[in-house]
């Protein structure tokens, strides 16, 4: 028997009532407690946000295990606040880019660059800015922390939404035009649903990336100002400063629990629900499952609860904006020639603005620094580049064979794939102190042995993408290999490598971007008063940030951005294009 739980209300009321009657009372009760608890927690957490700044000093972060749940809660709320801000950004900016050709000319390259530059470096600027806006309230620092997380989340989400808007199916587009949908209705009925699967995937990626920044952004020192917001990140940095192993362990544990909880309570149900938005006309073989989603569908109380929560959204979706007095739109049709000329003017304006900005940046740096600084910075950039290349190569050598081995065994890949994804979400920087201990104990060279930390968190992207690629190898190809006895090097060269290559490139691209970012926290590591440093661009930026030396921070970020963009354009992009063109199965 097939149940249609999302069926439209009132379509067959009698049947629906019969089905609902059989709900389990304990499930209703459990759901009530869950929901009530959640509400109280959210209210408590947000209340604390605009407490006066002084409270941070009178009531500092302590390593008291009883307070850890509260810290975890506040960190999580920050993450979701940033995610909400990212969504608002995504809907407005990506829509603008998709609708206006002139906006598109700026937004798309900007998103592309922002996706790949080291946002960690911006932290020092934004903290100062937000503290200036809310001088005596914690709100300023909260905003700075949230903004830092936002900068790690927003760009790929916006890019994904933009790409969905540009690839809307032509026939559905015609339906909306033929029925004369209002722009809002079109957004609710076509654009948003079509974009949802890609958007959710990118939201999950963003959340994983966000954890990395939470640790770095809650406890930050800019020059003489040190701000420590209550949260897991601050707990960890305090524990590290006090060399308290037990507390580090507790913090890591709390973080793991939070990641599992939001994955199970928030993302899994959303993914299960969003399965219906996948743009395929055929039923999928393995629909994603979630026990929370099932629970919500089965219990009357939770359904009502969700209905209440979603009620404003539903009302919003049903709203007709054009009932409001609308401004008459003037549509000017221009000849193609004038249109092109206008485009040229627009591009010229953008170029002039860019040149001005560049001149400003160079002026700012030149006032404080000399050419030799620039040359040194580039040299450090080369050092970090060598690290990134070597690490990606090593990770490839290790994880590709393992990933292929796992991917070709469905029983294993089903069990290990979620673990690999969890490891990718786990912020590796909390594990750095252990590495410091080891390096100090064995008297190793930090220039070499700090490097692996850069890829600690991002290598998993290579692993889980390769697993996905290997498990997608069609059965008939494997059978061909079996029949003709293709093995060893030929098997790798002609079957496996071509099959996993597109997946591998996706994973390696993400991993190398993450590496650059991680270098800022991985090249300088402290454990109590032991301070280890590896020469590199990341260390340069980190040191400049803690010294409050803005010109050097700006120079460091600019150089790193240049390296990342050049690396992406010259290595990953061509490989990606090649994979798309030649190696797509089907």
């Amino acid at each position, binding site marked *: 028997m097939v149940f249609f739980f999302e069926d439209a209300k009132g379509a067959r009321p009698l049947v629906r009532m019969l089905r609902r009657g059989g709900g389990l009372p304990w499930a209703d009760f459990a759901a009530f407690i869950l929901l009530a608890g959640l509400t109280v927690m959210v209210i408590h957490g947000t209340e604390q946000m605009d407490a006066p700044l002084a409270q941070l000093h009178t009531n500092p972060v302590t390593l008291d295990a009883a307070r850890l749940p509260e810290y975890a809660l506040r960190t999580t709320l920050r993450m979701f606040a940033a995610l909400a801000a990212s969504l608002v950004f995504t809907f407005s900016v990506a829509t603008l880019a998709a609708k206006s050709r002139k906006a598109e000319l700026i937004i798309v390259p900007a998103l592309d660059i922002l996706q790949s530059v080291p946002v960690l470096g911006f932290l020092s600027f934004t903290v100062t800015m937000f503290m200036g806006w809310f001088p005596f309230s914690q709100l300023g620092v909260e905003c700075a922390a949230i903004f830092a997380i936002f900068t790690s989340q927003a760009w790929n989400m916006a890019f994904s939404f933009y790409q969905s808007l540009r690839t809307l199916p032509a026939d559905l587009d015609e339906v909306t035009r*033929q029925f004369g949908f209002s722009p809002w209705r079109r957004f609710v009925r076509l654009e948003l649903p079509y974009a949802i699967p890609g958007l959710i995937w990118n939201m999950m990626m963003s959340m994983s990336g966000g954890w990395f920044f939470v640790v770095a952004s809650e406890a930050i020192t800019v020059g003489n100002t040190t701000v420590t917001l209550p949260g897991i990140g601050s707990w960890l940095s305090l524990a590290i400063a006090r060399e308290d192993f037990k507390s580090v362990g507790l913090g890591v544990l709390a973080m793991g629990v939070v990641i599992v909880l939001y994955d199970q309570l928030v993302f899994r149900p959303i993914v299960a629900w969003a399965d219906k938005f996948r*743009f395929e006309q055929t039923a999928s073989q393995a629909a994603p499952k979630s026990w929370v989603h099932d629970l919500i569908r089965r219990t009357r109380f939770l359904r009502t609860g969700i209905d209440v929560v979603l009620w404003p959204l539903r009302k919003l979706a049903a709203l007709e904006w054009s009932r409001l007095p609308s401004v008459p739109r003037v549509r000017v049709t221009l000849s193609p020639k004038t249109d092109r000329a206008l485009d040229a003017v627009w591009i010229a304006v953008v170029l002039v603005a860019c040149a001005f900005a560049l001149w400003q940046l160079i002026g700012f740096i030149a006032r404080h620094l000399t050419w030799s600084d620039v040359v040194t910075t580039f040299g450090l950039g080369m050092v970090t580049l060598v690290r990134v290349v070597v690490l990606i190569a090593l990770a490839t050598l290790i994880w590709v064979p393992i990933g292929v081995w796992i991917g070709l065994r469905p029983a294993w890949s089903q069990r290990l794939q979620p673990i690999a994804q969890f490891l990718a979400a786990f912020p590796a920087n909390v594990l750095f102190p252990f590495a410091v201990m080891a390096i100090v104990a064995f008297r190793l060279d930090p220039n070499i042995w700090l490097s692996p930390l850069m890829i600690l968190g991002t290598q998993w992207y290579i692993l889980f993408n390769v697993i996905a690629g290997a498990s997608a190898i069609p059965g008939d190809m494997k059978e061909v290999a079996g029949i003709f006895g293709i093995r060893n090097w030929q098997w790798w060269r002609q079957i496996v490598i071509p099959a996993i290559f597109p997946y591998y490139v996706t994973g390696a691209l993400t991993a190398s971007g993450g590496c650059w970012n991680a270098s800022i926290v991985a090249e300088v590591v402290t454990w109590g008063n032991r301070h280890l440093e590896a020469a590199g661009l990341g260390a340069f930026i980190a040191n400049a940030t803690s010294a409050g030396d803005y010109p050097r921070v700006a120079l460091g970020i600019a150089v790193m951005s240049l390296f990342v963009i050049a690396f992406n354009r010259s290595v990953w992009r061509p490989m990606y294009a090649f994979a798309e063109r030649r190696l797509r199965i089907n």
Partner: protein
Amino acid sequence: MAIVKSLPRTNSPLVEVRNVRHVYGKTGASGLLVLDNVDLTLQDNEIVGLLGRSGSGKSTLLRSIAGLITPTEGTVSFPPVPDCGPTTVSMVFQSFALFPWLTVLENVEVGLEAKRVPKEERRKRALAAIDLIGLDGFESAYPKELSGGMRQRVGLARALVVDPSILLMDEPFSALDVLTAETLRTDLLDLWYEGRMPIRSILIVTHNIEEAVLMCDRILVFSSNPGHVVAEITVTLPQPRNRQSPAFRALVEDIYARMTQRATPDQPREGLFPGMGIGMALPRTSTNTLAGLMEAISADPYNGKADLPELASALHYEADELFPIAEVLQLMRFAELEGGDLKLLPAGKRYVDSDVDQRKTLFAKHLLNYVPLAAHIRRVLDDRPSRKAPARRFRDELEDLMSEDYADKTLKTVIQWGRYAEAFAYDESADQFSLENPE
């Protein structure tokens, strides 16, 4: 038994299309002219078919009437009908165009929602339409749970629920299998003749000749390049029509002949495809298909001369699919199209009787003689000392003469033909033509 439709017939036109001309792509000389000087009047209470091959602009005309496209020139008007509100249109799509994230009921309601019909009434009308079209019990299903036929029923219900005066149908049954398509056609005709649909007229685009003869009161036959109306045929056969009846067969034959005849007898043969010389847009037809068709005509029962409708049904081809293949054969002087017949020429006969290598030699000779683009590529390669030329060069040349899409298709076709004929080689990763064989 003939069923007579009960609605009174008023003699006022619902739609008037005058002098419509449409150019796709860049304005100016390089754009592709898809519709040239088309007139159409849709009367009250009739089913009109727009019959033609792909690329004959019939879908463009339908979209102009739907208001989805503004034609480059000409007018589409809806003269006011006495005692009726404004004329409205609604459309059924070839691909169904259902929202996969909405249930059947929500999909049907979508048009009403856009018109801001209150919720209660929306629900009532949608359920009525679902009932009418035979979808009861599927209200809460998602499109991916339905078969193709059921999905198109949803498309039909969605179009009908908004009470349009005219139902526009864009190849509504061509994505369905033969049996399902036949059921849907019959159901639609039943609803129409019993007057159970609120619509006043149906305009249906199709490339299936039998479908047009089966359903329509009037058929407009379109020719391609550029699309224009070459014939208007009024079908007076009583409903329900029998595909096997001699009158039906005769009409189908007649339309086949009209669709294959050349507009003017002395027109050069290159005129079969849009564009002239190297700018001729070539259809993607494989050399295997060409060989197969020549072999089929050469063998029993045709022995060198085949009647197209007969051939199409024997080979399980739609007319639309068979025409381009036949025309490529004609372009290369392997066969000749004449009054609904495809006749093998001596070269075609020789091709069929040859072995693999002789076939290639013969094909190469005809390719370089009669396909200007192939000859052009070969000439450029011969002229260069390196015997190599980037494909980009030819692609740019083609894009000056046709749309990017057509250019891509044409180049791919000529590459396949050239490779088969061993007239030149092409290296995909370097994107270049050469005269060498790969090592």
